[in-house]
């Protein structure tokens, strides 16, 4: 064994997986996990923990994997994370725990994500559940949204003994884990549903089909339904469009719509009554993780897929692993390319996307080199479907119906990073609703911080 290298993880062959929705990564088995764990040098001053937004005691859980005591390892992870099976799959470990790993200085870092995933899957397969609170506090807290921020906040509050109810607008709990991230990256019934069951087993109630701001307001929850504190983890659900001509043509979708149809409504399965357009040639505009998810979904539905992105490969905001997987599966990358118009036929259907070539100029405020149009370089890509994946912003439904809740000019709720406190007494917020679209683990970190903030608030009340 080469201690400088990760124990390789088994994956579905690229050609095979491009035609199915089964999970791409197959994960470690016990021997592989123990072997990988043995590479950990158990640093006293563990840098990896500093890279983890929920501060999992990483060396301690890896030590238990090394010893083969997976149940104990799960216990350690559970102290800090309510969703380890999810995080092990979708966290950008390369820029967090693994990015800080000392092993990574000379060689490859420990495969912390894959180990976490192994431990969580082992617990799930062996019916090991997190520990519920022994004493109840008799105080009601409402959590809005059942995505990563809400589930984490609810789980932590329940462990502290609070009586927690999550309100979810859709018919199924999970938020972006259910409607956004595809089955092949995050299996719904085998992984997400089980994590949600675990949160419920802590005593958390989930009421679906309740749209806060429409079905009931935050003020009503507090004044009429007896909730003493509220956590808003409603995410960033509103899609952006480019505002170019032709965007309302038939065959132009937001990535949100395309993915919601496929993931939440199961439209990838022909038996589902919810339809989805199986394009023959698809352009996905954007370069983030959501763009990769939409592209790989369209590919699995039988299309030739192009990623159209205005900067170069180096600036792609998607995780390296996702870009790598997308390429392996045959996604075509049209980089330094920006759409200027969507073309349509006489019946209103998309039949092409007119783009212009870009080149990189001076760095902009994000520090990335600004893409500039190359004059006269317009060209057309023949496509019948266009998926816009340009990011999302928070839904103003809650902020506009809650008295005294301040938002910034991007409609993001203003909340203290330390404890999630907002401008309204007893109301806390975190995740994409506060930061704008970010990652699952950052939302979890915010949910965790807010649970602490709420506990302090209610203890002093």
């Amino acid at each position, binding site marked *: 064994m080469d201690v400088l290298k990760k124990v390789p993880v088994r994956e579905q062959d690229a050609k095979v997986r491009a035609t199915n929705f089964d999970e791409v990564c197959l994960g470690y088995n016990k021997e592989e996990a123990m072997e990988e764990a043995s590479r950990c040098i158990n640093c006293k001053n563990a840098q990896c923990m500093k890279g983890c937004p929920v501060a999992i005691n990483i060396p301690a859980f890896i030590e238990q994997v090394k010893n083969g005591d997976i149940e104990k390892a799960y216990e350690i992870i559970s102290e800090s994370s309510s969703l380890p099976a999810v995080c092990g799959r979708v966290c950008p470990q390369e820029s967090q725990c693994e990015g800080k790993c000392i092993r990574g200085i000379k060689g490859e870092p420990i495969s912390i994500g894959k180990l976490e995933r192994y431990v969580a899957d082992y617990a799930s397969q062996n019916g090991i559940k997190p520990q519920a609170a022994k004493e109840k506090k008799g105080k009601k807290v409402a959590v809005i949204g059942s995505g990563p921020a809400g589930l984490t906040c609810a789980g932590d509050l329940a462990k502290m003994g609070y009586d927690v109810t999550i309100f979810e*607008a*859709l*018919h199924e709990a999970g938020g972006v884990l259910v*409607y956004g991230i595809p089955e092949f990256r995050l299996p719904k019934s085998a992984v997400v549903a089980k994590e949600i069951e675990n949160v419920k087993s802590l005593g958390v109630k989930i009421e*679906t*089909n*309740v*749209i806060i701001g*429409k*079905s*009931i307001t935050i003020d009503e929850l507090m004044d009429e339904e007896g909730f003493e504190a509220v956590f808003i983890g409603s995410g960033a*659900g*509103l*899609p952006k*469009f480019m505002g170019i001509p032709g*965007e*309302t043509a*038939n*065959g132009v*979708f*937001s990535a*949100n*719509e395309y993915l*919601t*149809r496929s993931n939440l*409504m*199961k439209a990838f399965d022909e038996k*589902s*009554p*919810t*339809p*989805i*357009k199986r394009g023959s040639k698809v352009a996905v505009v954007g370069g983030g993780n959501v763009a990769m998810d939409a592209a790989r979904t369209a590919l699995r539905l039988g299309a030739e897929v192009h990623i159209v992105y205005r900067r170069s490969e180096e600036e792609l905001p998607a995780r390296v692993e996702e870009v790598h997987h997308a390429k392996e599966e045959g996604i075509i990358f049209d980089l330094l390319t920006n759409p200027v118009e969507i073309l349509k036929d006489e*019946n*209103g259907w998309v039949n092409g996307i007119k783009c212009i070539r870009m080149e990189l100029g001076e760095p902009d405020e994000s520090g990335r080199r600004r893409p500039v149009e190359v004059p006269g370089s317009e060209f057309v890509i023949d496509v019948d479907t266009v998926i816009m994946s340009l990011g999302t912003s928070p*839904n103003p*439904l809650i902020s506009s119906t809650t008295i005294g809740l301040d938002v910034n000019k991007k409609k993001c709720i203003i909340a203290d990073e330390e404890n999630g406190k907002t401008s309204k007494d007893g109301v806390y917020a975190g995740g994409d609703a506060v930061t704008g679209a970010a990652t699952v683990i950052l939302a979890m970190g915010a949910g965790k911080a807010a649970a602490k903030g709420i506990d302090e608030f209610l203890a002093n009340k």
Partner: protein
Amino acid sequence: MYKIIEAKEMVPNIYWMIVEAPRVAKKCLPGQFLIVRTDENSERIPLTICDYDRENGTVTIVFQTIGVSTTQMAKLKTGDSFHDVVGPLGRPSELIDTPIDELKKKSILFVAGGVGTAPVYPQVKWLCEKGIMADAIVGSKTKDLLIMEDEMSKVSNLYVTTDDGSYGRSGMVTKVIEDLVSEGKKYDLCVAIGPMIMMKFVAKLTKELGIPTIVSMNPIMVDGTGMCGACRVTVGDEVKFACVDGPEFDGHLINFDEAMKRQQLYKTEEGRKMLELTEGDTHHGGCGNCN
């Protein structure tokens, strides 16, 4: 689960149901809609709320069977349940926010086509409760497909018309508008709800007549909360989401031709699924003999 307190077929293919949905019933206002799912695998179907009973926590829905999902819904009987009901969604009718004194000065005309009578009803009823009797035209293809005549006649000055002349006046709703206006009626506002093509022609006529007109759009949507953007409609030079910005818009600004094209988006997929439902395994492509 959301229990169906009462269900009936009003006329062939148009169904009426009272459903238990306390959170929706408590908050909804005329003009808003809800989304239902029949079972755990069903499509999300948006429907305008036809009536509500805050005390009993129920809402009334009316729908026409047009595809697989509505056909499934139609099979539900009194005592069965919907798997999901969520709402209220969208913005209430503009009338709700207009001061009553101002409304009383206005002469309002409602125009309903077919199953569109159902969403018109709560608005007309709401006005009637405020002491305002509006004029209402209800159009139907033929006498046997006419719905809610009794209910509507109690809360409005009702003019019924059938396309084939089998009942009431004869001809399209647009003809009745023209007739009423030439009979000397003057209107300050028109609210038209029905098939897209009807709303298009009503809006075209009222524009010529100089009557401000509100229409209620029913485009394809998934979540109904602003998340998917499937329900994009062009209003003037802006693109709006019908689910959160509407469903009611200025009828003189809507791009109806585009909206009608967008309604065709899943016709092929829906047709295939309907064939599967009606003809079982025998007839949904792949045999090589037919398309």
